[in-house]
């Protein structure tokens, strides 16, 4: 019977070979190649000069401008000293200018897109968590209001509850923040009375104010485990239509809360030739809420080290020395964790740092947040 068996074996071998080599079905992935029609920015107002601010109204949305964000960061500790950093931001982007509101009958027809980022740095756990949500500003899915100030994206919420009290709530996949923020210092207008110029064209600017010292209490949840925390938060609120100018590739932004009651805000805009843009600037906020504006030439930021992200392969500066001679300020910033990169719709590093240094000749400490954009990809677009 041998030949017969050989025949059968040969056939089976051929058959299994054919089967093994046959192209397997892969998961369907469809790349959306969507028509890119940049929304005519013409319909939107531009930040083209100082204008008066009116709080609490200006806490809320400014739909005349295309881009807006409410940015909260903070350094919080448990009673026994476990340190957490958090970032909770809701971005708004107008996709139709306000004069075209109400053209379409559907409640779902969107004029605004909202994006939320929630990041928590669990320093002792050595973990960094980042989540993103997107929703249209329609049908109640996401939105922003003033009086009272309220911004939400599904169940993620920023809401004013009292004259100087705000609650933040966001949760995703076992990570949550539920915080109450109290502002004893009041808003600080950045730049020229809140007009923050980012480029030579008067329109390359944003309106920008901060709440730099928000007493914070509440709960942080990591993988379902709750931690009662307290500390300081910082809020930035900016709105603009075309902030970045050509040639600018990204920025490094610093918010530092010094334990002597001062805060520093600094940003330097990097240009595509590697130089620092002259429109970089900053401010030093005194305990009484008054502030001193800092121009690009007033401060020096140096970074000794770098860190390469294993996720995006981007190389970030890591660890900074900042000196502001005119204010007799010399500080060192060290990140609590190196890996605080948000690899979401866009990629940026936003992380908790601690500081040490001297101010007016006295040794000081504190915490802060550093944001670095444009290292993984050019950053001149969306928000």
């Amino acid at each position, binding site marked *: 019977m041998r*030949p017969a068996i050989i025949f059968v074996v040969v056939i089976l071998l051929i058959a299994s070979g054919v089967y093994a080599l046959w192209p397997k079905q892969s998961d*369907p992935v*469809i790349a959306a190649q969507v028509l890119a029609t940049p929304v005519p920015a013409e319909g939107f107002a531009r930040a083209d000069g100082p204008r008066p601010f009116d709080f609490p109204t200006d806490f809320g949305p400014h739909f005349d401008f295309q881009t807006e964000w409410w940015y909260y960061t903070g350094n919080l500790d448990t009673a026994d000293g476990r340190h957490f950093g958090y970032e909770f931001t809701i971005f708004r982007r107008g996709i*139709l200018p306000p004069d075209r509101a109400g053209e379409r009958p559907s409640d779902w027809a969107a*004029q605004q897109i909202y994006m939320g980022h929630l990041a928590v740095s669990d320093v002792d756990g050595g973990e960094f968590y980042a989540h993103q949500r997107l929703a249209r500003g329609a*049908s109640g899915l996401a939105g922003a209001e003033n009086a009272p100030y309220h911004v939400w994206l599904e169940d993620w919420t920023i809401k004013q509850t009292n004259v100087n009290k705000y609650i933040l709530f966001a949760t*995703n996949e076992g990570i949550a923040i539920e915080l109450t923020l109290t502002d004893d210092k009041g808003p600080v207008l950045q730049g020229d009375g809140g007009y923050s110029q980012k480029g030579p064209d008067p329109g390359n600017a944003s309106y920008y104010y901060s709440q730099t010292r928000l007493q914070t209490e509440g709960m942080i949840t990591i993988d379902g485990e709750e931690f009662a925390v307290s500390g300081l938060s910082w809020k930035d609120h900016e709105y603009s239509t075309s902030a970045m100018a050509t040639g600018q590739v990204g920025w490094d932004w610093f918010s530092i809360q010094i334990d002597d009651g001062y805060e520093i805000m600094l940003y330097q805009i990097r240009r595509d030739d590697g130089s620092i843009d002259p429109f970089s600037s900053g401010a030093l906020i005194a305990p009484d809420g008054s502030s001193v504006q800092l121009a690009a030439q007033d401060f020096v930021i140096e970074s000794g080290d770098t860190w390469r992200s294993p996720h995006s392969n981007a190389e970030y500066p890591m660890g900074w020395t900042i000196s502001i001679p005119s204010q007799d300020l010399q500080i060192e910033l060290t990140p609590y964790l190196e890996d605080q990169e948000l*690899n979401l719709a*866009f990629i940026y590093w936003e992380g908790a740092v601690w500081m040490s240094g001297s101010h007016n000749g006295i040794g000081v400490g504190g915490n802060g947040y550093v944001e670095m954009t444009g290292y993984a990809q050019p950053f001149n*677009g969306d928000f």
Partner: protein
Amino acid sequence: MASFSPSLLKVGWRYLISHPLQTALMLLGIALGVSVAVSVDVANASAARGFELSIEAVTGRSTHYVSGGPSGLAEETYTDLRRAGLEVPMAPILSQMISSPDLGDIPLQLLGIDPFAEEPFRSYLYTNTNGGSMEQMDAFFTIPGAILISTELSEQYGLQPGDAIELNLNGRLLPGLIAGVIEPQDDLSRRALQTIVLADISTVQELSGRLGFIERIDLILPTEQEAGLIAQIEDLLPASAVVLAAEGRNRTVEDLTGAFQTNLAALSMLGLVVGLFLIYNTMTFSVVQRRQSFGTLRALGTTGREIFILVLSEALLVGIIGSLLGVGLGIIFGRGAVELVTQTINDVFYAQTVRGVSIPPSSFIKGALLGLGTTLVAALIPAWEAAKSPPRSTLSRSQLESTLGKLLRTAAILGAAMAVVSAFLLIRIDLNLTASFAGIFGVVIGFALTTPWITQQLMPLVARLLAPIGPLGRMAPREVSNSASRTSPAMAALMVAVAVTIGASLMVGSFRASVIDWLGVILRNDIYVSVAGSNLAEPMVAIAPEAIERINAWPNVEAVHLLRLVQVESPQGPITVSANDNPNDGDEQVFLEGEGTSQQIWEAVKAGAMIISEPLANHLGLGAGDEIRLFTQQGEKAFHIAAVFRDYSSSRGNVTMWLPNYQELWGDEAVTALSVKAAAGTDVDAMVDDMRAELNQIQFLEIRSNLALRSETLVIFDQSFLITNALQLITTAVAFVGVLSAMLSLQLEKQRQMGILKAIGLSQRQVWALTLLETGLIGAIAGLLALPTGYAVAQILLRLINRLSFGWTLQMHLQPEPFIQAMAIAIGAALLAGLYPAYRATQRSAADAMRFD
């Protein structure tokens, strides 16, 4: 058996190439048999994959969905769920069937989505979550009528992003715009997107006029928390909404198309069964012819086992080549069959499937192994026969035929037993579909096995009948009887093929007659209106209220009856509800069982009961007096079933209820079809033309007269049996090859005898007559025996297979045509197969022929 000399294989090889015609016919038989099996497998696999793809494209990875019934869900429901902080992926959907004159007028599903919610569900629709610019989505969100189409559609119809197109929604043309092109990453998604276009949910709300509503919310619920999450979600839902498992949505359709495919697969197997007889026939003949040389080999020391292997190796060689040819042919046939199968599934089951050919490697392997296995099985007996050859002894054929006589009787007894047992099982036991088909095979093969013996018993009788036409009339039957070893398998094969042809034709004919009778009862009005492009049997697209008003006010309209056909949710999955306001509908139904007279039944329906169609009653195991539960706008509700009615419009089945009751319970005023009773003496055709001219300005409507509707229904009916006919034809072709091969073998063997007959004065004409008489007799006997077999097959198909496959029972309508046709095919095929052998017989001179051997 330590050594099998390879030189023996040469003996086999030489035999095969020195008998090229026989070898070729054997190869053809195997190849045809395998090709039918492969092509049906390819067609079935393609249809199944197409169906799966279209489901996958629409359902995505959702495990459950929130349904709000026919009128949809209020859009706030989604917002409420989203803002409730449930950590559950959810995506709102609002879909709509559309077509576009700019996209070939093919039916497309316009899937309204929220791109931000889509990723966990149908992530392949977008890749720009990472690094993508938000601006790219702006057009999709903000331009009214903006849709996305696949690259394939865009290339096929030459459409670019930014091009304006017209969209036909429910028979109205609306402006649309190609906002972008989706680039599928592989062939499968490319096919999935052949029938889907995408739009933002706001766009679909606006195009379809369903402002404020969504169709459903897809959910992904982890299995371990499923129950808890469903309870949590249902707490947040209005009473009209319900959480359902996604798989239920498609199960029914899958069951039905599965049954249809089993039917095709069974039919395709017949080709192989017929091929089995053919191979057996040819192998037997080759063995018989070589008894002398086998004897010589034995005398030279070759063992019986080696001879056995020799014959089997020949079969294997033929089997391999034939199977490979068959697989190749099968792919070619399969490509054609895919179109037919998909079309039928779309027409009959109204399942949206993606077209395209999937050729699963398993089809080849199955086909090849089937062909090889069949060949080897068919060769076993001849090989065993050959192995028994005693050394150097010449067995005359007469000796063989006499031993064969006993074999034929044994086969007949076995066959009869097989047929009886199979029939008994089919009648007595509730078998499933596959087992029932096995039963049919049992009956058919059983009958086939009795064929040779019955033929032998009949031949003396035939000889007496044909005696009046002279010596040839006596010779031919004797020859048929004497050469049973050659002819009986071919005859059995022909019988099987013809019997199946009779069975299938009788079934289709009876089915057709049943449908015509039924249409006569249910179609009592003059004009029927539905939306153009909607399914003929199941129109579910709403007619514009203005059109209905216009028809109501039309001159000479005596009555207008409205119908709402709709799918509603039930604990058993979606169920089609047919709600009408025809006060006499009770008289326009055929009730199979019911509580009281047709008037009483319809009164009960008006009071809130339902009647249920036969297929649905069979699927759900329900009857008159039972209850059926459905999810209404007011929650789950039980309905009394007053009767079961006959319905051939949908094998999915439906429940029929009183329209006002439906409207109250589901809050849905849509009308999807209507019928018009014209005043006596009205020219209906003129009325139809007038209505078409005027109403089409409101909405594209199909307006058909009673007669037109009937004939269109029958056209679709006939179309759905095209594939069945094609398969039957191939089976008959295989049988024809079998008869041809048998006749050739016979001719070859009888050359010497023919030579003697010619030497003693048989004329050329008499040679023709003798040969054709013989083959004609074979055909006639096969045909005759096929008549009762075919009748039995038809009965099983009608009573059992149809009920199991589609849920309906059919009445046998006996017609003479299938029987006459079958006889004609049997005799015609046999005569045709005799032509060439007869021609060859006349070509040889007597002396030449006698010198043979």
